[in-house]
């Protein structure tokens, strides 16, 4: 569903992403992890069409994000770490607008169901300024899920959420994967990635340094089954490695 091939992204002299390739199949939840400045956000932004790749190709459901962006974006949902809402539109107006932009059939009923599911019904006439950060995140998720996208990308989805919100977000991601969505989750919360992702791609200094299931990565890296240990091993950050045997999950 999501196919990234030899992606390169440069900003003037800085190469943020360098010859990066990976695929995400329907029903697969892939964790994209890496140290700060590794190129995760640039990769996600190129995949969703916010930024233009300097080189390589990205296709979503067979549609190239550069040459056929409209069709590719129809199949996408991007949940950014900081929810961006239109400050003068109410919650239900956000959903109405999204339904129209994505040409959603039965937009009204789907919006009502999502509002109910995400416990936003009571806030449907509220403006973003009247919502907490967690609520705003829920609105952004509702907008993202409204058109039932086959490809979903989450950038630091747990930022700013309370424990209940974290659990709900985790359930939402897992549920989308279970329903056949191709999901990418970029997060520094390695326990979440380990818990919900069927595969993990590690990026460091713009290059892919590991790709596989936790078990495969553990074998490759000759580290324990703990993703944190694998991550530190693969990205050569041993100096910060915790004592062996600790399990952050």
């Amino acid at each position, binding site marked *: 569903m999501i196919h990234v091939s030899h992606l390169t*992204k440069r*900003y*003037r002299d*800085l190469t*943020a*992403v360098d010859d990066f390739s990976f695929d995400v199949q329907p029903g697969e939840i892939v964790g994209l992890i890496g140290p700060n*400045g590794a*190129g*995760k*956000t*640039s990769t996600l*932004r190129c995949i*969703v*069409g*916010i*930024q*233009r790749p300097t080189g390589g190709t990205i296709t979503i459901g067979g549609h190239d994000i550069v040459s056929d*962006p*409209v*069709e*590719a*974006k*129809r199949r*996408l949902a*991007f949940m*950014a770490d900081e929810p*961006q*809402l*239109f*400050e*003068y*539109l*109410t919650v239900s*107006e956000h959903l*109405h*607008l999204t*339904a*129209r*932009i*994505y*040409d*959603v059939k039965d*937009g*009204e009923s789907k919006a009502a169901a999502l509002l109910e599911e995400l416990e936003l019904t009571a806030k449907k*006439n*509220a*403006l973003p*300024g*009247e919502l907490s950060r967690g609520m705003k995140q829920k609105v952004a998720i509702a907008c993202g899920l409204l058109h039932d996208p086959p490809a979903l990308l989450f950038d630091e989805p747990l930022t700013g959420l309370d424990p209940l919100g974290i659990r709900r977000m985790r359930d939402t991601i897992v549920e989308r994967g279970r329903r056949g969505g191709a999901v990418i989750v970029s997060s520094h919360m390695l326990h979440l990635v380990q818990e919900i992702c069927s595969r993990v791609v590690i990026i460091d200094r*713009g290059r892919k340094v590991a790709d596989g299931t936790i078990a495969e990565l553990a074998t490759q890296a000759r580290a324990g089954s703990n993703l944190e240990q694998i991550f530190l091993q693969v990205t050569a950050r041993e100096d910060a490695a915790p004592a062996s045997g600790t399990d952050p999950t």
Partner: protein
Amino acid sequence: MTGSPLLYLTLCSLRNRLRVRLRRLREPRYLIASVVGAAYFWLLFIGRGGRGRAPGGLSLISQARGGAETVSSTVLFITAALAWIWPGSRRPALAFSRADVQHLFTAPIPRRQLVRYRVLRSQVGVLFGSIITTLLLRPANVAEGGKVFLGLVLLMATSNLHLTGVSLSRAAGGWRRRVPQAIAAAAVVVLVGTVAAHWSELTAIAATGGSVAGELQRLSTTGAARIVLWPFRVLARLPLADSTGAFVAALPWVLVLLTANYIWVVRTDVPFEEASAELSEKLEGLRRRGVRALRQPRASTRTPFQLAHHGRPEIAILWKNLISMGRMLSWATLVRIGVLVLLLATMLSRGRGNGATLMTVACLFIAAFALLLGPQMTRGDLRQDLEALATLKTWPIRGAALVRGEVLAPSLVLTAIVALALITATVTSVHAPFAAKLTNRWSLLIGALLVAPGLVLAQLLVHNALAVTFPSWISIGGRPGGVDVVGQRMLVMVGVMLALVVAVVPAAIVAGVGAGLLYLLTGTMPVVPAGVLAGATLLLEAWIGSELIGAILERSNISAVDAADA
């Protein structure tokens, strides 16, 4: 020793701010903007020398120094009195930044020291304001300039300190609030009473064509009014002093006032943290989102129309932006604009007859304003959505459709205002001295209505093209000013005017050729067909422009600046 970290913070912030400004001159866009801005200031302050030099503000003031002193001292008095008495005047005393609140409020620093720090920081603005005002007053020589500058610095610093002290005292409540409030109220009574007691004399002087201003000046320098206005007069006298002797004579009193206010402010031990923290959030919002941050949107407003579930995306974006514009506008803003327009219209139509003429002038003024300045001021398009551009770019719509959708709302609103104003002007211009024949007026009106949408769209597209290509030039929030920002604004203005000319020329040629042909055939000059041709050409150009801007938008990296965060 405890004061040094805050002084260090102040000096480092100033130095680094200057360094950032200088460093970004390496980028051509900032360098060019700075050169243009500097040239503008040169022309404004210094370059108007020579034969055509107009008299400076100071030379005008020197012709009526006494009057200027009275006016200035009265303005200062009213400002101070309102700060004490006006019920709604509850501005937080000290404006700290978010970082100040997070780092300094939680640090083991005495409250008094925080007050001193904030007072010190606020003097930077005083210095800058004094420099600009001095340059604007155009002193004749360096000595005069130095005198005016120093006088203004001391005047503004004292006023600033006093207003801070007022806010602190009001926050303190109790006698610290009530006693000065009572004194301020008594002072107001004295001044109003003085004018009331001499009302008949003043009206008599006015009736005989005498100098009311001179009499008011005399009243303000005698009796109880003289005592009330004394501190304000002393402050106002310093920058207005006509000789070094007068300046030196006024200086000690001003220094006493400044010191007294300073001691009063730093010794007022009032918990200001909560109000200041609240203000810091407001200021942050202002910095990021501009004046919109200060407005409370009204969610209850109805949507402009029912958005169908399916259809062109442009209409969906139009719907979104019309909602935003509707919720941003307030009745207070409309009333303020209305009052301003009426005042200007009164001035423009003075001596030209009746209310209908006044209305005609007001409407023509509104139409011209909406047509030429509206596209710059109405920002319900991509400029408003720059912060949400990442979201917009994930939408499955073409860049050109996005651009068209974004400019639709402001163009509709502005065109409606222009149309309404022109129609009213046509109706009310029956008796206006400049009115043409009725049939001609209506033909001109229809011609203008046909051309207006294209003119508005052309300008809006230029502004949106700038937002897409140079997003950092579009000020979203309260960006710090500077020479480069002034230069950027001037370049934007020139760019818009040039683009307008470029857009108008083909439309004028098409309309001219078409009208000429019709004139040859019929013998009359057809205004409406020419308007149709010009309007259609402008709309075609706007369509092509939106396609080009859309293509740029699709290719643009909206956040090349966050490479470090990649």
